Structure formats: structure tokens, C-alpha cells
């Protein structure tokens, strides 16, 4: 690396800006918004890192990616080393570099950010991961196959938690089969997060890498229906459950079953998994709303409202009951959505949806809110402003209030202990109430993040490995 730079010189470098598709154009296409850094930009950004001894950024990363090391290698222009370090710590770096909420994870802890802006760790991670993908042939090829242990592990669900656990367990020499309910891989990465944030080819290439390493994936197998957990426990030496939290929370207001009213998962699945409005050969239909209201303030809501824009909505409105400051979505997504012409209708809560004679949603009745005293979450609680009720004209309403644990699997596995929200009870390493059965990701945490799910997958795999070694 350029060791000649003094700390002062490093401090003088300005944080890189991510080049992006122009907002007007991108709000009408599904191509990726962020265009990625050029090599020179990435290296310059890497040189902003102060290489401090405290390694605070690593603490901020849920899987403790060796950030200073990979950034140092990158700063020296040694991309192969940077890639090797990254891939060792993180099974899906090209995914995380795109979707991690860096501003509250690694970058929130960056010492460089105390005065000025933190190092753009996420952008650098994306750059190195993309480089590795493009130069796959030039890198030390996939690791040699480990000696097989003769143990078989079933993984339920092909999202980030399941993929990570499967990759780790294969690396340790166990035979792994992932059972996935849908017809394709990736979990929320594929059916939830849109192409313009996370291109499908990134998921495809990461999954292909795992398959090359020996992971078997069987789609169209619904655990709890096609096979039960007890059956898996009989056939396999251990089971890792990573089936996510895909059960939509309903609005519970009059009119939620009118035509044109979607739950976020349906809206996103039609487009992302089934190609509606995206792929000219796809057969699945979707309503192209002209006036679309999306209810919620998280990543899911942001993805829906930006999708609505891309499907042609003249007004794509985000209806959120708190203020902008409390929105749980990633800062970058909120910023991008604003640029794309999304209207933010804040401090507003839906009361009912009214329809026309044919049963189509026509108007969303809203209640204006204000912020009152802080509630249990520490955020100020929204309270209705008496009498302040108004109607929004709509033809599509998308409910993005969130999801809960899907009971499909657990309903047929009564021996598995659940908490009061229906999530599986697990220790920090993923052990459940049943010996040999481990769980992690959203099914344990409730809706969380990709990297937390991956962290769980990694820890779960380690715990399963220990268990398998002991259970001879």
C-alpha cells in the first residue's frame, strides 16, 4: 500500500461517491442503480483508511469481516489477496457489499468517521467481490475438496442463512442438502430484494460457487409438507433450519381484500421471482398502478415503492406513520427513492381502503399523526391528530408492514420450542430445544438483516460440526 501517506494526507482524501444511473432514467428501468467503483477510485478510497489498531469496524460487522486487512490489500492494489481475505470471512460479499446497512454496522464504528465521513467499506467490499467474480478464472480456484466425514446435514431454506451454513458445513467435509420450498434459490435475496439493488446474476454466481464446492440444492421441497422435520431427523445426522420469516402481517383495516391491494411479498415475488413486468417472456401478471400507495417505512416498503415507479406509477407514494428520521430502511435506499420521485407521506397512518362497484381499490383513507412521548422502543410514539383525516386517490395499495414466522414447518414439529411470536427458540450458536436441530436467520430473530442471517448460518455450522464430532 501507499505507506508514504501521512494520516493527515489520508484525512484529506474525500469520500468516494458511488456512480449511479441518473435518477430520471433509472426510475423507469430495473437495471442496477449503483454502477460500482472504478479500480482507481476504490484504491483511493481504501487509502482513506487510517489502519488504526482498534479495528472498531470489525466489531461493527456481524460476521467480523477482516476489514482492515482486505482494505489494506486493496489499497496496495493487490486485489487477489483482498478477495481471498473477504471470501474467507463472508460467503456472499457481493451481496453484502450491496445490501448491508453499512451506516449502522461497520461504517458506524469507523474511526475515520469521527471527524468527517467513514471509509466506504460497503462500496469497497462490493468492488472487491465483483472483481473476484469477474476474475474467477485467475484466482486460486475453488478450495480442494475436504476429506469427507460421512455425516449428512439437511438445511431447510435457501436464503442467506441456509446458504452460509451449507457452505461452511461442506467446507468441513459434511454432505449437505438444502431443501427449498420455492422453485429457485436465494430466499429473500431473490424474491424480495429487487434487481435494481441486487442483480439476480450476483445471486446466481454466488450460489453456483457453493454448488461447485459440493452443496446440493433441492427446490420444490416444503419441509412440514413434502417432508417433515422428524423425517429429516431420521434421514440426516443434523438439521439446520433457516426458513426465514415469510408470513405477511395484514393491515387489518376495512378494504384490505379489494382488488389492487397487495401484500409486499406478493408484489415483489411477482416481479422478482416470476419476472412480471421485468422479463418479456414471463407469464405472471402484475397490476401497473398509476397511483400507488405503499404502507410502511422499512427496506421492504422502499423496494415496493421504487418497484411501483419502475412499473410506471405516476405517483408512487410511501405512507409511513412516523417521521423520516424513524424510518428503518437503509439511508441509501431512502435517498435513492427520493431522487426517483417517490413521494413521502410521513406521519400518516392508513384507516381504510374504499373501492368502486367492481371491487377495485380507489381511495386510501389516512389519519395524520404527530410524535408523542417515546415508547418501549425508545422512539417517539405516533399519535393521531384528532380530526385530521384525508383521502389519497389510489389504484394499487401495497402493504409492507412486515412479516412474521411462517408456521408451516413448526406446525408439524410440535417438539420444537417456539417463543411467543412463533419464532424458533435458539441459543446464540443456533441450538434449539431438539438435539441435532439448529436454527438461525429470520426464523429465530424475526425480520433482521442479510448479514445477521449469514452470521447465524456460520455459527450454526460451527455448532453442528462440534455436535457431529461428538456424536459418533
Amino acid at each position: 500500500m501507499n505507506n508514504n501517506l501521512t494520516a493527515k494526507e489520508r484525512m484529506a482524501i474525500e469520500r468516494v461517491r458511488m456512480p449511479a444511473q441518473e435518477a430520471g432514467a433509472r426510475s423507469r428501468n430495473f437495471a442496477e442503480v449503483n454502477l460500482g467503483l472504478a479500480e482507481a477510485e476504490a484504491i483511493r478510497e481504501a487509502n482513506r483508511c487510517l489502519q488504526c489498531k482498534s479495528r472498531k469496524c470489525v466489531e461493527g460487522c456481524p460476521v467480523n469481516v477482516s476489514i482492515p486487512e482486505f482494505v489494506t490489500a486493496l489499497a496496495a492494489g493487490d486485489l487477489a489477496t483482498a478477495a481471498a481475505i473477504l471470501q474467507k470471512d463472508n460467503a456472499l460479499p457481493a451481496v453484502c457489499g450491496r445490501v448491508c446497512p453499512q451506516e449502522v454496522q461497520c461504517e458506524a464504528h469507523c474511526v475515520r468517521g469521527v471527524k468527517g465521513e467513514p471509509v466506504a467499506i460497503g462500496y469497497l467490499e462490493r468492488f472487491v467481490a465483483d472483481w473476484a467474480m469477474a476474475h474467477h478464472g485467475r484466482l486460486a480456484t475453488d478450495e480442494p475438496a475436504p476429506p469427507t466425514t460421512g455425516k449428512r446435514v439437511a438445511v431447510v431454506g435457501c436464503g442467506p442463512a441456509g446458504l452460509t451454513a451449507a457452505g461452511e458445513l461442506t467446507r468441513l467435509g459434511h454432505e449437505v442438502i438444502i431443501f427449498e420450498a420455492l422453485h429457485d434459490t436465494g430466499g429473500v435475496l431473490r424474491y424480495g430484494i429487487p434487481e435494481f439493488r441486487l442483480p439476480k446474476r450476483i445471486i446466481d454466481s454466488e450460489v453456483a460457487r457453493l454448488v461447485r464446492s459440493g452443496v446440493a440444492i433441492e427446490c420444490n421441497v416444503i419441509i412440514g409438507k413434502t417432508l417433515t422435520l422428524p423425517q429429516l431427523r431420521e434421514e440426516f445426522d443434523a438439521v439446520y433450519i433457516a426458513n426465514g420469516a415469510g408470513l405477511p402481517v395484514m393491515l387489518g383495516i376495512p378494504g384490505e381484500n379489494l382488488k389492487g391491494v397487495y401484500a409486499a411479498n406478493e408484489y415483489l415475488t411477482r416481479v422478482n421471482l416470476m419476472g412480471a413486468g421485468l422479463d418479456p417472456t414471463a407469464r405472471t401478471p402484475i397490476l401497473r398502478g398509476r397511483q400507488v400507495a405503499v404502507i410502511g417505512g422499512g427496506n421492504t416498503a422502499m423496494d415496493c415503492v421504487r418497484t411501483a415507479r419502475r412499473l410506471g406509477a405516476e405517483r408512487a407514494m410511501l405512507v409511513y406513520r412516523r417521521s423520516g428520521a424513524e424510518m428503518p430502511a437503509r439511508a441509501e435506499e431512502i435517498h435513492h427513492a427520493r431522487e426517483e420521485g417517490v413521494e413521502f407521506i410521513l406521519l400518516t397512518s392508513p384507516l381504510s381502503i374504499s373501492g368502486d362497484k367492481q371491487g377495485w381499490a380507489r381511495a386510501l383513507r389516512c389519519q395524520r399523526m404527530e410524535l408523542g412521548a417515546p415508547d418501549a422502543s425508545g422512539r417517539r410514539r405516533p399519535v393521531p391528530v384528532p380530526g385530521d383525516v384525508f383521502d389519497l386517490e389510489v389504484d394499487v395499495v401495497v402493504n409492507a408492514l412486515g412479516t412474521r414466522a411462517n408456521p408451516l414447518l413448526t406446525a408439524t414439529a410440535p417438539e420444537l420450542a417456539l417463543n411467543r411470536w412463533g419464532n424458533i427458540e435458539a441459543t446464540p450458536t443456533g441450538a434449539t430445544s431438539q438435539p441435532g436441530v439448529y436454527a438461525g436467520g429470520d426464523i429465530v430473530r424475526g425480520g433482521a438483516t442479510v448479514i445477521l442471517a449469514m452470521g447465524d448460518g456460520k455459527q450454526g455450522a460451527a455448532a453442528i460440526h462440534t455436535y457431529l464430532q461428538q456424536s459418533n
Partner: protein
Amino acid sequence: MFEVIRNETLAPSLHRMVIRAPRIAAARQAGQFVIVRAATDEERIPLTIGDADPQAGTITLFIQAIGASTRRIVAAPAGGTLRDVAGPLGMATEMERWGRVACVGGGVGTAVLYPMAKALAQIGNEVTTIIGGRSAPYIILADELAVFSAAVRITTEDGSCGRQGFVTAELAELVADPARRPEAVFAVGPVPMMRAVAELTRPAGIKTIVSLNPIMIDGTGMCGGCRVEVGGESKFACVDGPEFDGHLVNYATLADRLTMYQEHETCRVGLG
């Protein structure tokens, strides 16, 4: 990939397909369905499992090819394959010894009715089957149903087969006759038919089960698209159903939602 073992035409555009799916065949109970995709880029279509042979590892589907996707499914010949078959999904039919039951099928609903009626007969119920259709060629599975039914009654709108009129006329006769009055009624068919059946049995206080057919995507409770109003609550037909108490269903909402993709401007390129 799922191998098609047999594919035969039973009636105009009605196919019986036997598909190799050993795990589904082993797990399946009456009333459950699969989600099928003929090929990549196709819609995910729910189809009732008409029959299953766990020994042979096969399931039987009865498919009315009404639209583009179902037409492409039935186009797969014996020896060919279907890309995706996932299941068994949904709750099994609540099996009880009611005594006398009436099983009422309309159009392709008869295919969905078939496994329910068979299972009800197998556990000792006396099954009277009433099936209806537009005209004779649309009357399906009459012989198959006769095998285990105490009686099979047929109605057609044009009178070309059986009694002229609707299935409800036959059912009304049964209900009115104390010697033949069913303890429970199972009805599957178009929404207006199920609604008419439910209205007929409501005053008589006869337990009525209907099998609902909302549009589905995943079939696992993930998307929320199949929701129906039952007893004033939103239920997901794919996991809570597809069978519900016919007296509690909001048929108007269901009928409305089924037309969601009919005439509206949608993003569907290459409509077949």
C-alpha cells in the same frame, strides 16, 4: 424435473395427468394440492391432487386447460417433464363419519371434488354425488365417482345430459327429503355455484364445506395473495384452506378478486 407418466384427455380440454413425484405421493392427503410450473418463465398454478399411488410414487392431476398456463401444462406428453411440482399443500379435508353426505361438483370443480368424495366414502360415509356442467361434454368423472357413490346425479344447463338446470335443484330435493337429507355437504365449483349451495343449506343448518380457488403464487402462506374473507377475517386459502365453512365465506370478495387480472392493464407480456 418431474416426469409425466400418462396424459389423457377425458373431456374437451380436461386432462388426466399422472406424474412421478414420490415424496408428494407419500405425504399427500385428500383435499391437498400442488403448485405446478410447466417450464421456466411460466406462472405457478395450483392444482388439486386427484389421486396418489405411494407405491408407484405417482400423483394424478385433473386439469382443465382454460388459460395459457394450464394449456402449457397439459401440453407435456407422456415421457415429457414438468419443471416444478411442489406440495402437497393446504390442509387435508376434515374427515369425519357424518353418515350421509352430498358431494356437489360444478365443471372442473368435479376434479377437485373427486378425491374428497372418494376419501369420504372410504371412511364409511354414504356419498351422494351431484355433478353439473354447461352441457354433456363438460360432465366429467361420472364413472369414476359412481364406483364409490351411492348415487350420481347429473345436471346440465342445456339438458343434454341428466336433469336440465343447476346442481342446486338436485341438492334441494335431497335436502327436502328426510330419508335422504345429508348430514354434511361438500361443494366445489364456480363461486356462484358454491354460494348458491351455501345459501340452500344455511336455513337447513347443514354443515357445508366449500373448496375455494383464489389466485395463488407460492401456496405456502408467504405472499398473502390468496386471502379470502371467512367469518369476517382474512384467511390464506393455501395454508388455512382451501376448504372452509361455506356459510362463513364472503363470496363477493372472492369473485371480485378472481377477476383481478382479467380486463385490467397489467404487465404481462406475451399473453398466450
